[in-house]
């Protein structure tokens, strides 16, 4: 059976095609102001990458914040359900899934089939690490890709509130004026974001193995802050931003049987 998952996230639309357990295509587009158009482009790219036509797909499921407006799909699965299902497929022993996206975060406790047992969601501004770190990296004139790595050079914890992406730049004014090294500011930012995510994780419990999915998992500074804060290792899959789309494709397969 060949299925597709379309994950309409706040920042990016991701599309994944799955045939049995083989991934045939992974594509993404920036969601921008027209996520439906972005989804159509990502879907077309996935068709061309896989050499399939739309008729070859047995079922297409959507997930993500924009799942209700997703083109091509008849049904959907929540972000919580998709993250859990996709992660358990990749790592059957994981029981706690942390999913941090562009503008939201969630923590999920799940069973061995990927069924959600408990979850916590935080959709407040800057709950997703990406928007916040983008703003601070810009303010410090550091490329975003370097910003996470920079924090690994710091050994000093300085407190930072880091609540609002809109006021993010004002958060770093004082440390910049105090000539705080950029690596210490970077670590403070990642620690502050991680502490809010960890507050959610503690609500569902840190169970057995822990995985981090979502695009923010590429940020080594955030992974490090999370591991220090939770005092546990975190598993990061190879394509963390596609785990939601994978979960949607798997759900499509299961519901079509």
């Amino acid at each position, binding site marked *: 059976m060949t299925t597709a998952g379309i994950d309409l996230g706040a920042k990016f639309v991701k599309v994944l095609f799955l045939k049995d357990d083989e991934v045939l295509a992974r594509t993404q587009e920036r969601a921008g102001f027209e996520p439906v158009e972005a989804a159509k482009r990502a879907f077309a790219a996935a068709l061309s990458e896989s050499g399939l036509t739309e008729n070859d797909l047995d079922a297409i499921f959507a997930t993500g914040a924009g799942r209700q407006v997703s083109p091509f799909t008849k049904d959907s*699965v*929540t972000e*919580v*359900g998709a993250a859990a299902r996709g992660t358990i497929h990749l790592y059957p022993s994981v029981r706690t899934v942390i999913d941090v996206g562009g503008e939201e975060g969630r923590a999920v406790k799940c069973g061995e089939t990927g*069924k*959600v*047992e*408990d*979850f*916590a*969601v*935080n*959709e*407040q*501004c800057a*709950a997703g690490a990406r928007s916040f770190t983008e703003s601070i990296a810009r303010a410090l004139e550091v490329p975003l890709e370097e910003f996470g790595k920079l924090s690994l050079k710091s050994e000093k914890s300085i407190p930072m*509130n880091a*609540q609002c992406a809109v006021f993010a730049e004002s958060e770093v004014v004082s440390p910049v004026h105090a000539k705080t090294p950029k690596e210490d500011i970077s670590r403070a930012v990642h620690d502050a974001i991680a*502490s*809010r995510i960890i*507050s*959610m994780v503690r*609500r*569902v419990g840190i169970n057995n193995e822990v995985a981090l999915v979502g695009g923010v998992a590429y940020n080594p500074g955030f992974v490090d802050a999370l591991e220090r804060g939770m005092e546990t290792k975190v598993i990061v899959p190879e394509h963390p931003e596609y785990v939601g789309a994978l979960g949607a494709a798997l*759900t499509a397969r299961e519901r079509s049987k």
Partner: protein
Amino acid sequence: MKANYGYMDGSGEYYITIDTDHCNDCTDHPRVGACPVGMFEIIVDDYDDEVAAIKEENRKKVKYDCAPCKPVTGRPPLPCVEACPADAISHSW
């Protein structure tokens, strides 16, 4: 399943927890109408169960939306907690 909706900010943790395992046994979902702000809704979850949830537009501001029910002193019982016969709802603050 315990569903936690809310956030942590500089002043504390603000989560509303709904134990949705109880929602299936409940026919009229009385707490949905009990909240003066109308924060609750009934949704069909990924497992085809009808469960209560906090509406998306309220999830980012539960601290402020619940403020009228939570005076600083002499806090009365919360309408949502009182209305749920299964004790399925709790607040972290």
